[in-house]
């Protein structure tokens, strides 16, 4: 396939800037920014081309064999593109944000190096065609994320880093057990061709499935494996934005989707009676995350718990065996990314420009920082699921899909979670817009909403979330693409 080189090109588009910025000494800030930005733009261009190609049914792939039968396979299918488009778009705006946010703080070459590595790993995860490739890139993601979490090199970030590894490494061991247990019986597993699981007994298949869920659940922040996510907020804002709201967390959810649809097949999963317990676990995480978010007084911690809850929507969508629920779950993969990254950007701006870390300090900031606050409000509305934001669309599809498969109780969960989301987001919006600002808040020298590099990404992300919600019906939107995925690959 001539297209074979494309997936490698995309991964390189993220890897090469990373390696270059590793090599660049600190003072070449401008060159480093140019390199990273051009990498991001190049990646977007390639993704756009691929979108057209895959829409026409093409599926370019590149194969590198580690040992006879043990292949690293990069394959571009519709599901992979959904994730890569999300990471491509958000990488670009987050790079802009990061350049503005970090300004001239120390160790930036190292930062952008690992930042690029993370995105390359995420792209790798998306394109992986076999379980082994997935695991290799999954681990690379863990490794390249740790330095970013500990970037500030203070005690708090090291504690967060420690906790992150304490969760991530055992999880990868569990994941490895699952992969090997499965592959030792069925031979190498390729997503495209699927595997016949008849060779394994039912109980061992179930145990393997739960091992997969445990292994991937840590990154997907499923209850009780979510402990690391709130702690990882000690990282600088761009890191929290891209990684902990989009790349890392989504890698977990994406993995679970791959496992359910491509490795086991949705029919086998429900036949084995695994779909409902997973749905219950996801629903419990949704509610648990929201309740814990209520308690947090720190904005970033609250957003982190909200991520814990929101990602489980995707897993819920995958767990419900209906096509519509699947579409809802897949669409939410993108929607949640857009909304959450907008929120994290705004939280970063509040922290950086106005020194606001906690919810109480948000009083009356709206009028002083209108653009950021509007973006934040839009993001918050999306999270609550208020139409016409993107959040509503996927929540609606999830609900309809759930009832379609007979899991009516899911509707109650969705409604309650919307209420809880409102309960922990509306007070923030209320404080921002309706409470008087304390007198002692001095605006920074060049005004609150400077530099533009911070504000524009936040507004773009919020606007995108709104646009995606509004134009949800069109085939170009994430929902449209998710429908294409489900129709083409997973219709049971």
């Amino acid at each position, binding site marked *: 396939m001539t297209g074979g080189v494309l997936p490698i090109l995309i991964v390189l588009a993220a890897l090469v800037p990373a390696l270059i910025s590793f090599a660049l000494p600190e003072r070449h800030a401008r060159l480093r920014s140019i390199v990273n930005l051009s990498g991001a733009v190049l990646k977007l261009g390639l993704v756009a081309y691929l979108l057209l190609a895959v829409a026409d049914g093409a599926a370019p792939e590149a194969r*590198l*064999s*580690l*040992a*006879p*039968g*043990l292949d690293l396979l990069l394959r571009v299918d519709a599901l992979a593109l959904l994730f890569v488009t999300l990471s491509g778009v958000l990488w670009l705006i987050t790079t802009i944000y990061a350049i503005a946010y970090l300004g001239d703080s120390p160790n930036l070459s*190292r930062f952008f190096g690992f930042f690029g590595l993370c995105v390359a790993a995420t792209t790798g995860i998306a394109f992986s065609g076999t379980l*082994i490739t997935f*695991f*290799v*890139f999954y*681990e*690379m993601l*863990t*490794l390249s994320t740790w*330095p970013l979490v*500990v970037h500030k*090199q*203070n005690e708090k970030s*090291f504690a967060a*880093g*420690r906790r992150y*590894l304490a969760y991530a*490494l*055992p999880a*990868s*061991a569990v994941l*490895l*057990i699952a992969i*090997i*247990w499965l*592959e*030792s*019986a*069925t*031979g*190498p597993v390729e997503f495209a061709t699927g595997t016949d699981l008849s*060779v394994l007994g039912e109980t061992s298949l179930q145990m393997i499935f739960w091992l997969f869920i445990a292994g991937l659940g840590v990154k997907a922040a499923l209850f009780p494996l979510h402990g690391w996510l709130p702690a990882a907020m000690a990282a600088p804002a761009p890191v929290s934005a891209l990684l902990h709201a989009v790349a890392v967390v989504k890698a977990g959810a994406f993995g679970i989707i791959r496992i359910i649809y491509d490795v086991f097949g949705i029919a086998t999963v429900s036949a084995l009676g695994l779909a409902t317990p997973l749905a219950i676990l996801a629903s419990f995480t949704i509610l648990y995350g929201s309740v814990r978010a209520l308690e947090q007084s720190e904005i970033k911690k609250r957003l982190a718990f909200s991520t814990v809850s929101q990602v489980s929507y995707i897993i819920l969508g995958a767990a419900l065996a209906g096509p519509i629920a699947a579409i809802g779950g897949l669409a939410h993969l993108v929607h949640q990314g857009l909304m959450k990254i907008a929120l994290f950007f705004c939280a970063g701006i509040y922290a950086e420009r106005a020194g606001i870390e906690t919810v109480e300090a948000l009083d009356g900031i709206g009028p002083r920082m209108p653009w950021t606050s509007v973006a934040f409000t839009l993001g918050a509305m999306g999270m609550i699921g208020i139409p016409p934001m993107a959040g509503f669309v996927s929540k609606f599809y999830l609900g309809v899909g759930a009832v379609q498969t007979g899991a009516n109780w899911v509707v109650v969960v969705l409604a309650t979670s919307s209420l809880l989301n409102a309960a922990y987001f509306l007070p923030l919006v209320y404080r921002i817009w309706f409470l008087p600002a304390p007198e002692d808040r001095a605006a920074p020298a060049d005004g609150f909403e400077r530099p533009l590099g911070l504000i524009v990404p936040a507004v773009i992300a919020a606007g995108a979330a709104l646009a995606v919600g509004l134009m949800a019906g069109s085939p170009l939107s994430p929902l449209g693409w998710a429908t294409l995925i489900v129709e083409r690959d997973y219709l049971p």
Partner: protein
Amino acid sequence: MVHPALLVAPIAAPLLAALLAIAFPRGAVAAALSAVGVALVASLVLVVEVARTGTGAALAIGGWPPPLGIALEADGLSAMFLLAASTIGLGVLVVAQGPFGWTGRETRKGYSFWPLALCLLAALNAIFLSRDFFNFYVGLELLSLSAVALVALDGKREAIEAALRYLMFALVGSLLYLLGAALLYAQYGTLDIGLIAASAETNGPTLVAAGLMTAGLAAKTALFPLHAWLPSAHTGAPAVASAMLSALVPKASFFILVRVWFDALPGQAGPGLTLVLGTMGAVAIVYGSILALLQERLKLIIAYSTVAQLGYLFLVFPLAGGDSTAQPWFAGAWTGGMVHAVSHGLAKAAMFLCAGAMMAAAGGDKLSDVRGIVAKMPLATFAFALAAVTLMGLPPSGGFLAKYLMLTAAFASGAWVWGAVVLAGGLLAALYLYRPLASLFAPADPDRTFTSVPLRTELVPLALALVAVLLGVASQFPYDILQVGRSVAAEAGLE
């Protein structure tokens, strides 16, 4: 047919350089580097030749074919180990120019290091190429004596004590091995692996001989209960030397053990052997890791990590032949073990060289001394991290490929206990390597200054670590080479 020079060069070149270094110390460095360079080129060509022809390259020394003469042969396994040894050797000697280079007048260390190191490398190459049991013995002796001398090179009390204990263990090990070889000769009338394999049958003398050889070689490979000499020895030795000691020396005796059981006497391996070696290997992994976790000094952590990682190698015995029919590949566990030996060698050499560089910069090797050195030595820290990734067996390193092949064999053959141990090893490695990594990346307290270190002491470990990672990525080529001339037992298993 491969030109005999290829087989002889890796042995003769370092020996010539060693003799030259003794007689003409001023030219020692140049002789050493060129000799090891020649050895590296020879092994590279050898590897390519072996891969291309698909058969091992054999040479009967002096024109006398076995059983009378001694045969040298480079099959896939020996070619790989040769290449690894030469690569690491060259890297180590390049870095050794710093502490042991020519500084105007001749010093004790400066003079003694080069012949010892060169003889050590020559001994390694001799062992990797030989097919004769007594020749293994002479190679082992040459290796042990030069290693012991290197350990004692620093002249401090701990170093000499460690060297003495190491010598005691090594000598007992060699003697038991020699006794085993003697009994084999007495039984079969030959010392050549191939001939013994042809006529081997299960009887008293053969079993006792094999048992003695295994016990002796286990002592020299520092397998768990017999490991007590390794940590103090590898910590006492100068960092450059301990890089070679930790990465290569135990691998030589392990190589002979593989030759004994997989090539010479596969039929005689019973459950006793596989269970004993497997259990001792498993305990080594856990015990070594726990001890590494409790150490405060960087070199001790790395030394105990060697004890742990060597445990992995011995898991090959129970796991060999564990592949199920589902896998398209074969001899997974055995190849995994060999890949682990090579990737661990590269990673460990890189780690010790980094530790050496950092000790030179910080003036001490306690974790508190090297705290926050990343600001001053980013490349070395990154190399240390990469090596750590290989030791933890995280993708995309060679360590991961080895772990994966072993795990698949373990699960396929139902012996998931070994699988659990392999996994636990990876996690424990993450645990004991986290502390040094965290202190390297920690913020240095401002008033601490590190002396600057020549760039090559950072670049060489980085290169070695990158090769270790490369082994995991471009691993199809090494995988195929290891299959050349691989024994049947490696795939069928030892029971």
